[in-house]
């Protein structure tokens, strides 16, 4: 499993796949203050990514993967700051 819960931190590591979406959603539904750590994420499946977009949890950024860093995380930042529905 590339998604795991460590205390109050949700770690998304390596290649996050579609099956990581459901536990991620569960953890965030249970406690929306949990931090999602993308430090070691190499790819986010669209299903995982859209949950982050929808629920806008606090993100810990990483530099492991250029695509995630350059294109995905900025979108989450915008989504968070603009609070767009």
């Amino acid at each position, binding site marked *: 499993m590339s998604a795991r819960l460590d205390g109050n931190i949700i770690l998304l590591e390596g290649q996050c796949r579609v099956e990581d979406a459901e536990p991620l959603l569960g953890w965030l539904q249970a406690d929306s203050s949990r931090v999602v750590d993308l430090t070691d994420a190499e790819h986010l499946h669209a299903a995982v990514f*859209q949950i982050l977009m929808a629920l806008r949890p606090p993100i810990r950024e990483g530099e492991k993967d250029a695509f995630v860093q350059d294109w995905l995380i900025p*979108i989450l930042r915008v989504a968070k700051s603009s609070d767009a529905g």
Partner: protein
Amino acid sequence: MDDLLRHFTVEARELVQQATDDILALEREPAIAAHLDGAFRAVHTLKGSVGLFDFAPMGLALHAAEDLLGALKGAEARIDSDVIDILLECIGQAERWVGAIEQTGQLPPDAGEEGYRLARALRSQLDEGAAQAAPMIPEADVGWIDDLLAAGSDRADLKAHSAGLVAIRYTPRADCFFAGDDPLALLRSVPDLVAVRTTNREPWPPAAEIDPFSCNLRIEALSCAEFDAVKTVFRFVPDQVTIHEVAWRDTAGTHEVGSDGSPSRETSAVGAAASRMLRIDAARIDRLADLVGEMVVAKNSLAHLAALSDEGMDRKDLVQGIQASQAAIDRLVADMHRAVMDVRMMPMRDIFRRFPRAVRDTAGQLGKLIDFSMEGEDVEADKSVVEGLFEPLLHVLRNAVAHGAEPENIRLEAGKSTGTRIVLRARRDGDRIIVEVSDDGRGIDPASIRRAAQERGVAPGDRIERMSDAEAIELIFAPGFSTASEITDLSGRGVGMDAVRSAIERLGGQVGVQSLLGRGTTIRFSLPLTIVMTKVMAVRVGGETYGIPIDGVLETAFVAASRILPIQEGEAFVLRDRTLPLVRLVDLLGISRVSDPGRGAKVLIMSAGDERVGVAVDGFAERMDVLMRPMAGILAGMPGVMGTTLLGDGSVLMILDIPELIG
């Protein structure tokens, strides 16, 4: 191949044909809604059956074709020759794929690419049509590109690529995760991204109601890679993506890039020979079932008779009973035989309907104007005859387009209509069918045929000189007459008219040609209705019995010895004021003569080509219907023997090919 797949291929062929017919009809009569409805239904049904299997690229292309036809129905797009072309191309590809599926059970490896290309080309027609119907693209549709450009304008690499950009708007289907798609993985593989924006398509539901497996994303991106490179990334989701080429800072200049229409539009005959399925009118099967029922009754009465004979039945009654039973069974067997033959009968339509497109394609490639029509699609013949006609007819039709049709200006000068008329005609003639291809084109010049025949050594020079014009024209069927130099890639394919002739002769038929220089050419095939049963006449020669196909025999005659005149090395006789050459079958077969030449001769009057000839035999025996088996194996090359048949007494009857024996 499993049953489902086999049914699929049969059905798919019919639907492909239906769609082709309707699309061609639509081109002729764009105003008639029935054609459009028919084509739409056929493509829709075909797409549905494709969906049962793992043939995604085929489904993709057909889905796009269906959408285009749907848009035509809704008058959102206009019917023009581009639309017809791409629809036919898609259907043609579908037909080739069905052929491949039939042979290998799967689509060929390049199907993904091709399916995407077709879908793309079809959709570009759709977009063009939509653009014509509603000329302006809604503001919102280009607005997103502006937004993206603005968002990406601070990037140095964007400025460096001011030449052109590719804008992508990708709206994954809600259920795309179940199909195994990861839209972000696709986005990641887009080369040279310069801007990305991802939004939610629908407002996000409250956290507790989010469905993690329903995709609610819309992805917009700019890339400075080549258009084709971007297109390739999205080749499996063309229905969910729009890709535009954008000139830097000139969003008004967005344009869709259409298909790179492939020139190859060879009508596929793949699988025509492979198809061994037979579709049969249910009424014919019912008739067979009835006959089997009657057969059971006849069998029971025979059983009854057998039981009675055990009980010491009177001999006379027994004989009468057996005879009555035999007569009944005889009649039933004959009826059943006829019914089975009927089952094998199929209308010419099944192959004819494939020709309009072939002619259209050939004419299009050669830039000729052709007015093609067909008659006699309802004429029926044995399945093997009808199917065997496809290739030769295709060749002859292509010849008519390639060689028969003249340029329009020449036609007008000659007082003809601009379009060359080509008529494909089938009709019944006794127990034969006649299939003709006539054109009103330039005709065949006997002088140039003579010249070509001499150059190519088709026949001895002096013989060619002596030939009548009609005979000279027949030389086009001679082996070696068609040469590579006149074989275009269209009419040629390495097949000459001699191949057409041998294909027709294999079906038990004959070929003929009539042509008038400047007036047109008619190629005529005469074929037996069925090649299963052959009527033969048995003749006795030198103590042996041989069969001669009766359709070559015009009449029989007894010629008194005094009327046989020796002429040079040969003999001749006069029949009703005409002198006919006489050949003796014993000589043809190389058997030593046993008959007494002084007693006159029994003669079969036969037609050999256009001539009549008398064939002397020792005696006539009965006429019969036989199931002729062609010579196979090492006997296949035996000259003068058409085939063999097994007689009632177990002996083998050789069936002679008299025209071939005469040479």
